[in-house]
């Protein structure tokens, strides 16, 4: 019975992925990609990885999908959404064969992989000392904290890169395109109703991340989405690059993380070492700052560089 479910799910995932690549039109590809992300998050649940399922649904399907859709909107506005005619099948045959070869090689590798002892025995002894119950959060924020710290900075690097794509004459304008909302309309009401619940859900995801699936990235994404809805509903006006408070919000998470790491190094415990008795609370503090920064960074990434001047 479960095998039938898995088979159906995998077949659906592959069909939607093929539709994404082969189907006509960019818009269709984007919509299929969002469906693909949602199906994939079901697959993650099947693989017993609920934390990943949440991340995939929120970030992979949700946020990435919104990014694609808003980019598509901007491209349509300048008449660059249509696709040029694709190359003929004959021209693409070598590429198709090479890609099939890659898939074949990976499939072969799966059957050739030795099965190592896992989870590593060292992990079992380390987990009780992590100061946190959820093993995935323990790996992210304690064992492999250096990865996570760099990752939060990767997010920031992407945002600065996106900001650099603003036109010079727009630099001091507000982020993104202005939204026109009818006061008292559907969107305005939705924007008023959703944020209280959304904030609750976001905070809850972070809070339960300590001992059950959830965490800073998943919660931060929900909070970013709440901010975006509020901006779409005209409740919040996107800020400008010159507003220092927001820029401080962007760096707060990585900075607190780094400072916690340095304090450990100075006190002699070691870089990014969280001594066992205080590990839980230290992770809590880091996580709060991280969530704030992730939410602000993600929301700004979606809104895009400043460009409101030309439309107002």
């Amino acid at each position, binding site marked *: 019975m479960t095998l039938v479910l898995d088979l159906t799910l995998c077949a659906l995932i592959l069909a939607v992925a093929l539709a994404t690549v082969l189907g006509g039109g960019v818009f269709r590809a984007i919509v299929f990609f969002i469906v693909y992300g949602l199906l994939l998050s079901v697959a993650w649940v099947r693989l017993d990885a609920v934390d990943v399922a949440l991340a995939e649904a929120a970030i992979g399907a949700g946020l990435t999908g919104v990014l694609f859709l808003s980019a598509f909107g901007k491209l349509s506005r300048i008449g660059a959404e249509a696709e040029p005619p694709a190359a003929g099948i004959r021209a693409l045959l070598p590429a198709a064969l090479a890609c099939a070869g890659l898939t074949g090689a990976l499939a072969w590798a799966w059957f050739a992989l030795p099965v190592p002892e896992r989870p590593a025995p060292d992990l079992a002894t380390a987990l009780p000392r992590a100061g946190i119950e959820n093993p995935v959060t323990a790996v992210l924020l304690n064992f492999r904290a250096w990865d996570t710290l760099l990752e939060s900075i990767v997010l920031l690097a992407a945002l600065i890169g996106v900001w650099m794509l603003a036109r010079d004459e727009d630099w001091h304008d507000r982020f993104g395109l202005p939204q026109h909302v009818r006061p008292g309309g*559907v*969107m305005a009401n939705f924007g008023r109703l959703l944020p209280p619940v959304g904030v609750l859900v976001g905070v809850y995801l972070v809070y339960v991340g300590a001992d059950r699936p959830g965490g800073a990235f998943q919660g931060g994404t929900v909070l970013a989405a709440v901010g975006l809805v509020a901006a779409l509903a005209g409740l919040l006006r996107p800020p400008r690059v010159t507003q220092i408070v927001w820029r401080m919000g962007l760096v707060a998470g990585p900075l607190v993380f780094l400072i916690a790491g340095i304090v450990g190094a100075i006190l002699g415990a070691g870089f990014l070492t969280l001594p066992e008795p205080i590990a839980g609370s230290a992770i809590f503090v880091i996580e709060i700052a991280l969530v704030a920064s992730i939410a602000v960074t993600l929301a700004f990434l979606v809104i895009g560089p400043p460009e409101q001047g030309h439309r107002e």
Partner: protein
Amino acid sequence: MNDLATYAFTSIGLFFFVAGSVGFLRFPDVFSRLHALTKADNLGLGFIALGIAFQAESWRLVALLFLIWGLMLLAAGTMSQLIARDALRERDGR
């Protein structure tokens, strides 16, 4: 008993989903398609939530299930309104 209720309600829910999907595929224009999708699917989701609620171990889970349903109603309603308005504007050539 609980299992029986789950089977019954999820089946009803699935029926509405199928009906909604058929409507989505068969109806001629945006408005009637939206009508099929939002109404039938929201109802279907409600029944599925009800069905799963019989399997829940605590009232907390039941509350969460219906919170999800409520949020879906809110989102689906808003989105269909927005899509409909956009389609209307396009039809009127504005």
